[in-house]
C-alpha cells in the first residue's frame, strides 16, 4: 500500500517533467550550458555594445553593407524631444523604438493616420500626446536594461512581403537565425497571434515555425509548446509556407558574424517587399525557444561546428552558408 502511493506521487511529479537524460540525448541546449559554453566562451564582452544598442548595430550594418530598415531620425537628448513631432508630422507609417530595448519592449508601430490620430497596427488609435509620453519613457530608460537613459529611434515601417500576410495576426513576422562562428545553425519564423497580442514572443503565445535551413520551407510549428499544423487565427496551413529568397536571407545572417565579431549570435530578419531581407537587430544572448520551434536540439549542430578544423572556420560567407545548408538540412537531422 505504502509502495503504491509512493509510486503514485513519483509519477505525478514526473508527469510535468522529462528526465534530464532524455533531454541530453536529444541534444537540447540548456540555459546554463548556453551561458557558460557558448556566450561566455565565444562572445567578447567588449563587442556587446554593437548589438545591445540598435543605433550601433545600424551603423555597423551600414559599414558592412548589410541592408537594414531605414533610420529616419534618432533623438539622443531629452531636449531634442521637441523635434519629434516635427519629424513624424509628414510621416504616415513609422516605428518608434528604444535603442537599447530588449525582448521587443517599447516598440510602437504606427501603420496609418486619421487626421490627428495615429493608428497602431492593431487598429487602435493614439494621440500625439501619447507618442510624446512614449518617447519620454524611452529616454528615461523605462525599456533599457538596468533603467539607463536611452535614445529614441524613428524608423521607416518595413513594407512587409505579403507572403507572410496569412501567417501573422496583427503583427510583424520575423525570422530568427542562430549563427555560430559564422555558420547559420538553425532558423525559425515567429508569427504573432491574437493571443500573443500582436507580439512575436513565443512565451506570450506567438507561433514558432521551424524553417529548414536547406530550402526555406517550414518543417515544424508550435504554439505554447504544442505542435500545430495551422495558424490559430488565419487557419492557414504551415505546410505550404516557404520563405522567398531564402539563400539571400541566410547569407545576410551569416555575414553578421563578420559585422559583430560575436561567435554565438541570433539575427532577427524581416522581409521587405521591395528590398528583400533586412536586418532588424542582432542578439548576443539569443533564447532557446528556437529548439522548441524546430523540435530539434541545438547542441549537436554547435558541437559539429566546434569540431571543424581551422581551415574550414576561416572560409568566406558563401562557403559557410553552402556548408550549413548541406549539413543542417531538415531531412538529414530529423
Amino acid at each position: 500500500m505504502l509502495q503504491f502511493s509512493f509510486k503514485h506521487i513519483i509519477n505525478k511529479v514526473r508527469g510535468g517533467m522529462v528526465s534530464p537524460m532524455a533531454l541530453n540525448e536529444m541534444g537540447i541546449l540548456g540555459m546554463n550550458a548556453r551561458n557558460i559554453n557558448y556566450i561566455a566562451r565565444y562572445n567578447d564582452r567588449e563587442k556587446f555594445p554593437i548589438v545591445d544598442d540598435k543605433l550601433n548595430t545600424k551603423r555597423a550594418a551600414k559599414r558592412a553593407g548589410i541592408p537594414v530598415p531605414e533610420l529616419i531620425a534618432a533623438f539622443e537628448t531629452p531636449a531634442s524631444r521637441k523635434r519629434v513631432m516635427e519629424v513624424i508630422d509628414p510621416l504616415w507609417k513609422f516605428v518608434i523604438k528604444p535603442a537599447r530595448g530588449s525582448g521587443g519592449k517599447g516598440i510602437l508601430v504606427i501603420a496609418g493616420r486619421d487626421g490627428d490620430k495615429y493608428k497602431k497596427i492593431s487598429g487602435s488609435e493614439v494621440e500625439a500626446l501619447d507618442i510624446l509620453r512614449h518617447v519620454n519613457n524611452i529616454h528615461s530608460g523605462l525599456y533599457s536594461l538596468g533603467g539607463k537613459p536611452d535614445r529614441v529611434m524613428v524608423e521607416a515601417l518595413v513594407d512587409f512581403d505579403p507572403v507572410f500576410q496569412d501567417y501573422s495576426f496583427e503583427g510583424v513576422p520575423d525570422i530568427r537565425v542562430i549563427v555560430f562562428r559564422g555558420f547559420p545553425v538553425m532558423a525559425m519564423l515567429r508569427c504573432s497571434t491574437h493571443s500573443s497580442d500582436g507580439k512575436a514572443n513565443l512565451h506570450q503565445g506567438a507561433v514558432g515555425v521551424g524553417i529548414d535551413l536547406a530550402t526555406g520551407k517550414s518543417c515544424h510549428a508550435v504554439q505554447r509548446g504544442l505542435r500545430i499544423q495551422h495558424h490559430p487565427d488565419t487557419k492557414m496551413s504551415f505546410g505550404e509556407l516557404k520563405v522567398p529568397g531564402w539563400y539571400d536571407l541566410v547569407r545576410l545572417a551569416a555575414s553578421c558574424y563578420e559585422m559583430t565579431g560575436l561567435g554565438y549570435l541570433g539575427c532577427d530578419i524581416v522581409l521587405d517587399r521591395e528590398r528583400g531581407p533586412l536586418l532588424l537587430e542582432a542578439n548576443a544572448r539569443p533564447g532557446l525557444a528556437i529548439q522548441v520551434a524546430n523540435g530539434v536540439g541545438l547542441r549537436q549542430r554547435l558541437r559539429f561546428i566546434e569540431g571543424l578544423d581551422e581551415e574550414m572556420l576561416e572560409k568566406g560567407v558563401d562557403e559557410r552558408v553552402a556548408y550549413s545548408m548541406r549539413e543542417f538540412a531538415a531531412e538529414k537531422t530529423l
Partner: protein
Amino acid sequence: MSPRVQVYVIAALLALIGAGLTAYKHFELGFPLLPGEYRTVWTIEAKVGFDAEGGPVKAALTLPREQRNMEILGETFSSSGFGFFIARENDEYRAVWTRRSAEGPQSLFYRLDVYQTPGAALEQPLNLSTQVQKPFLGAREQEAVRLAIDSLVKQARERSSDVESFTTQLLFELNDDGNQDRNLVFRHYTDKSLVDVALLMLATADIPAHRIRGLYLEDDRRRLAPEDLLEVYDGQRWIVFEPSSGLPGIPENFFIWQRGGKSLLDLEGGRNSQVTFSVISNDVPARDVSMRSTKGEKEALVDFSIYSLPIEQQSIFKLILLVPVGALVVVLLRIFVGLRTSGTFMPVLLAIAFIETQLLTGLSIFVLILVLGLWVRFYLSRLNLLLVSRIAAVVVTVVLIMGVISVVSYKLGIEQALTVTFFPMIILAWTIERMSIVWEEDGPYEVIVQAGGSLLVAVLAWWVMTNRYVEHWTFNFPELLLVLLAFILVVGNYTGYRLSELMRFRPLIK
C-alpha cells in the same frame, strides 16, 4: 590552466581552509559544532555617551550587583584615555571614569556577561531604607493636584485589602486614560514618568517604595533605554510591580541593573549625557558557563574574532553573516531550478526584513506597500515625469505609506505592523518601478508571477536564514563562509539543465 580548472582549484583551497579552521576551532578551542546543550549567556553593554566641555570630567555609572537569579560571569570596562576605578558607596557599586581634560563627544563602555539561573527567586532580605519622606504639596496652586492625588490614593485604598493589592489598584488607576484625577496629575507633572508619579503617591500613602532600573533581555537589541519597575515594602518584605500592567512579580527576562538608590549616571564636566544598552544572546556550552562562573575570570576564546567587537557591532554582524546564506539560496534557485525573480538579490533583502518583522507580518506589509505603491506609480506614469524624479516620487510615497501604516496600525493596536521600518525603502521603490514596467509591457499576470517568484525565494531564504543551525554556524564559525564561497564557485560552473527546463522542453520528447 583553463578558467574551469582554476575555479576548481580555488574552490578546493577555500573549502580546505574553511573546513580546517572549523575543525581547529571545534577540536582545539572547544567550540560546539551543534547548537543544543547550551546555555544562553546574555551580553549586556552599557554605553555612556556625553559631550565633554573641555575641563576635568568625572562620570559615575551605577553597576548591577550580584543577584540570585542572574549569574554575572564577567565584566569588561573600556575607557580609553580615562582613569577608572570602582567605588563602593552605601551598598552600591559605581564605575567611575575620570580625566583631567576632555572635549567633544565621548563614549565609555561597560560590558557584562550574565547567565540567567532558571527558577531562582529574587533574593529577599534587602537592606534598604524603609523610611518614607512625605512629599511636600503645600503651595496654593497645587491644591487641585493634591486633592487629585488624595482622591486616587483614597480610591485605591477603598478597593484594596493590603499593600500589595493597594499598589495594584493604584497602578491600574494610573494607567487608566479615562480617570480625570489621574489625567490632572499627569498634566501637572509633565516631565515625570509613570513610576515617578507612582512613587509620589506611595509616599503620600506612607508606603516605603523605590524604583528598580533594568532591562528586558531580548536578543539583538540595540540602543535600549533602561526601564523601570516599582518595588514596594509591605511591612515584611519587598514586592516588585510591573508598572504598566500593575501586576506583582518580576517579569521574565528582566535584568535588574539598579535597585533603589540614586541616579544611574552622574556626570561632571559634560553635557547631553545618556546611557544606552545593547543586549545580545550567545549560545555557550553548559560546560563553558560553569567554567566561567566558577573561575569568575574571562577567558578569551579567540582573540581575533567577531566576539572581540563591541556587541552593538556583533549583533549587526550576526545579521550580515546570514546574507551569504540567503545569496546561496538565490543562486541555487536560479541556476538549478530556474525561478525568475525581480532583481537578483532583492529576495535576500526581503528575507532580512522578514527576519526582523516575522514572516506573516512582513508578507502582508510587503504586499500592502506594493499594491499601494503600484497604484500611485500608475498615476505618476501619466504625468510624463523623468525617470529619476519619478522614482524619487515613489520613494517619498513609500515612506509616506510606511508612516501611515505605522500610525494607523498603532492606533488599531497592531503593534507588529510597526516593524514596517525594517523594509529597505529604496528597494521597495525600485521593486514598484520594475513591477509597473512589467505590468505595462506584459500585463498583470506577469507581475503576479514575478512578484510571487520573488516572494517565494524570499520566504525560502528567510526559512533557511532563521534555521537555528544556520544561525549557529554562521555566527560561531564565520570561516564556513569560505566553504560556502567554494560551493558557489563550483555551482557557477554547472552546465546541466534547470528544473524548469525539464518542463519547458517536454514537448521535444515524444
